[in-house]
């Protein structure tokens, strides 16, 4: 149980996710492959075969079936782990809402990958954020270590009787999934202390005691009650997360907040980001500070429940705030920008300017120069007192390459 027993090794985000499931001592793993997630279920199937993980591993015929199996297994009282990505998550979409309504706590890892069309493999967050209203809790990780740790925390929070909802842990495809960095593997005995056996009072099927989950209700009022209970359960997750974070720090020495503040103390302008690209954002903050700019970064880690109070605390009184959404809602703009704007509205000292930037779509790099542009435009907006956006991070150089591709795709062939 002491922190000295924690050893570190080089591992990918996918391997870290598999380790999270292994340490959580899961009972059942329904799987289906999809790039860039496959390594997770591959690793777990290997461990199930070798006996290193004492779980039943089953390959399903689709993500829709996989998520149904995950929810149904959790309803029997088993601890369940599963993983998917992008199109796979969307294929399972109907079931996400269904199993969340069953109030079955299990952990789903999503490896973010931008959605078709056009099809791609690299990440942005339109996949995971599409599921933001499903009833799943959501934790978004910046590092491979955080992937592993967040899975353990996700089980603890999800299984708490004050919550009892499934949880999603998100990591970026390629930038974490296939990226190796040192990860400390927590001591399994300490994990057993952190995660006692799963004994849900409201779940557990037996042949002798049949039960129906999620039966039909008509007229609306019964439905209203149960859906609202899900909302209250998710909101309880804020407090339960804090308690879990305290216990996690006691056992493993690492502390996670609902949000992470990076050099915010004296910052007049703040950049808001999520996931792996927040590492780049922190480097950009350091570079700007070296030039004398008072900037900082707020990383959103828990997206559901939405930590409105923590966000308000971090952003109130700033000159300007730039929300960098790695997603795009066509016809609207950045998804997280909307939620941040809503939770700042009633604040007495809301920022003078709220700016919306869209960057990193389809895994597009966000260069140092682009971050400089973000800080520059945000500072101007703050001085002016009016926000801007959505502004797409996409450079002149990139557009010249785009035009070359359009020439190859159309003009060359038709001889124009």
């Amino acid at each position: 149980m002491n922190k000295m027993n924690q050893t570190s090794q080089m591992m990918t985000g996918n391997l870290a996710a598999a380790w999270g499931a292994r340490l959580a001592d899961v009972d059942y793993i329904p799987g289906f492959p999809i790039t860039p997630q496959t390594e997770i279920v591959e690793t777990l199937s290997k461990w199930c075969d070798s006996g290193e993980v004492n779980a039943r591993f089953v390959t399903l015929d689709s993500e829709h079936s996989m998520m149904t199996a995950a929810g149904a297994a959790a309803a029997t009282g088993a601890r369940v782990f599963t993983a998917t990505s992008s199109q796979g998550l969307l294929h399972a979409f109907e079931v996400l809402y269904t199993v969340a309504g069953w109030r079955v706590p299990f952990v789903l890892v999503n490896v973010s990958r931008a959605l078709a069309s056009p099809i791609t493999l690299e990440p942005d967050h339109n996949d995971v954020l599409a599921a933001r209203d499903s009833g799943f809790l959501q934790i978004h990780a910046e590092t491979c270590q955080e992937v592993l740790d967040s899975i353990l925390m996700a089980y603890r929070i999800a299984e708490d009787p004050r919550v009892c909802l499934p949880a999603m842990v998100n990591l970026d495809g390629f930038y974490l999934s296939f990226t190796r960095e040192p990860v400390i593997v927590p001591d399994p005995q300490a994990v057993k202390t952190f995660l006692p056996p799963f004994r849900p009072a409201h779940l557990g099927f037996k042949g002798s005691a049949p039960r129906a989950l999620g039966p039909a209700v008509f007229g609306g009022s019964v439905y209203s009650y149960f859906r609202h209970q899900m909302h209250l359960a998710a909101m309880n997750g804020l407090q339960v997360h804090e308690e879990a974070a305290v216990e996690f720090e006691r056992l493993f020495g690492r502390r996670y907040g609902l949000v992470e503040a990076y050099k915010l103390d004296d910052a007049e302008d703040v950049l808001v980001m999520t996931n792996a690209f927040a590492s780049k954002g922190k480097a950009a903050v350091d570079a700007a500070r070296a030039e004398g700019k008072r900037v900082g970064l707020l990383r959103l880690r828990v997206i559901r429940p939405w930590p409105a109070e923590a966000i308000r605390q971090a952003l109130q009184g700033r000159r300007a705030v730039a929300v960098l959404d790695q997603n795009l809602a066509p016809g609207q703009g950045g998804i997280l920008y909307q939620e941040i704007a809503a939770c700042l509205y009633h604040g007495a000292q809301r920022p003078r300017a709220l700016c919306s930037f869209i960057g990193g779509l389809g895994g597009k790099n966000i260069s140092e120069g682009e971050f400089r542009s973000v800080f520059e435009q945000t500072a101007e907006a703050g001085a002016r007192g009016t926000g801007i956006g959505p502004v797409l991070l996409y450079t002149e150089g990139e557009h010249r390459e785009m035009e070359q591709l359009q020439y190859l795709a159309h003009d060359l062939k038709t001889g124009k």
Partner: protein
Amino acid sequence: MVSIRFHGRGGQGAKTASRIAGTAAFLEGFTAQDSPLYGAERRGAPVSASTRIDRKPIRERGVIARPDLVMIADASLIPDPSARVLEGVDERTVVFVNSPLAADQARAQFSIPGRVTTLDLTGIALEHFGKRGAISALLGAVAGRLAGLRQGSIREAIARELTDLGLAPPVIERNQTVAARCFEAVQPVELDVGARQAMAVAQLRAPTYEPPTKGTAGITAGPNSAIRSMSGWRTFRPVLNPELCNGCWLCFANCPEGAITIKPDGKPAIYYPHCKGCLDCVEVCPTDAMTVERETEAANNT
């Protein structure tokens, strides 16, 4: 605004009757709205439909909570609390019951607070159509009469709605003729559509979190369908004549409620408490061993 709420069982035609009334009002230049409510489709299950008629734009939606006129296609629905047939009914409400009983008898037997009118639409349909079938045209015509609509517009509305359902022109014509008789058999009434008392401000309740044992949508009480009698769903009951039965078991295989069992001698037996009167067994019987008897209000308690 005139608000008419129809109640029937799936398959009886309450929804179509509501549309006939809506279309007839529309043809007369009124603003009309008709809107059915039913759950997972199931023949015999309670169905309701709401028709609103006004001169002004109708700023209402969904089920009528305070009807001026209630049209009951099946009296067996009245005691079923899930059907909510008498909800919002008071002494000013006009209630029509499809029943051979006289109005006063029906009023007393079903404890209806409103002004009751009756007519045996099922009996008329049996007499004129010679078989069991939907009574939508007849119910729609009576509703139109009570609401003060004209016979001509109802005739046209029946044609439109039954054509939409794909019925053949001779069938539609017969429906129009019989509907006209029903129209004439009922006296128009003065509907009390005066101003209503405004509702008090609702006391909202802020729900608190309850443990998942309570707060999860689930049923743990075990199977309870065995104790649910569906006898009240029947307008007609199937009756087996064992002499004619060839033991083919088609009725047993086709019963959607599992209400038909096979006895040791290989012949079927109908368990009436679970029979909802859909008569699928009658349809599939190749030897006409299944016959049909009409239920009466007092008798269908088995």
